[in-house]
């Protein structure tokens, strides 16, 4: 998967940009789910240069969650229910919209207050060696917010896709 929507960059790719003053650089912090279980660690930040802010947190998933997912795959194969699997071996990262989390500066923890362990376990993953595209972003949003009705912006390929509450603090 190549990131055809090249308005998203990993912050460490942008040598001339940094986290703005008075905002936390959460890279290296742990992230927990709605039950305070550790999901993984913030590996990088996906930013939009035009919007001058972070859009996604790039999370390296915890080994326990990856192992739980593998066990599920084995179970399904054993039961032969024909489920199509959505990730490859080696894909151990997911993205989380910035507006879906809150930040605790004291404990250096990021909290995905509305997302549970099973949601993260079942969300599409991607390989960090490759980038993702808008289709992957839509799958992830569907996984986190299946109840949301898609609007016109949902189908756009430009930055209007990010004009929703899951991406900001409004």
């Amino acid at each position, binding site marked *: 998967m190549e990131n055809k929507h090249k308005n998203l960059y990993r912050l460490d790719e*942008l040598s*001339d940009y940094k*986290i703005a003053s008075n905002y936390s*650089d959460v890279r290296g912090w742990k992230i927990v789910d709605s039950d305070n279980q550790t999901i993984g660690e913030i590996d990088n930040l996906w930013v939009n240069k035009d919007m*001058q*802010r*972070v859009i996604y947190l790039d999370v390296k998933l915890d080994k326990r969650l990856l192992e739980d997912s593998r066990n599920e795959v084995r179970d399904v194969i054993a039961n032969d229910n024909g489920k199509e699997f959505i990730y490859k071996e080696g894909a151990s990262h997911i993205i989380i919209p910035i507006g879906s989390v809150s930040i605790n500066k004291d404990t250096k923890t990021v909290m995905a207050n509305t997302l549970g362990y099973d949601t993260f376990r079942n969300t599409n993953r991607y390989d960090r060696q490759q980038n993702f595209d808008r289709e992957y972003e839509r799958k992830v949003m569907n996984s986190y917010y299946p109840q949301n009705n898609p609007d016109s912006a949902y189908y756009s390929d430009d930055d209007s896709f990010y004009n929703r509450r899951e991406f900001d603090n409004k």
Partner: protein
Amino acid sequence: MAEIKIEKKKPVWPWIALLLVIGGLIYYIYFVDHETHTESNVEIENTTSAK
């Protein structure tokens, strides 16, 4: 919910250039010999050595 903004880093080279200019001025003021050698000084030395 969280928000993290980014900003462009401020360039460093203007400050480096300023430091070099200040360093150059300090060097010029304190270390460069500003004494001038005139012809009259040379004449005085010659007359005194003639004794």
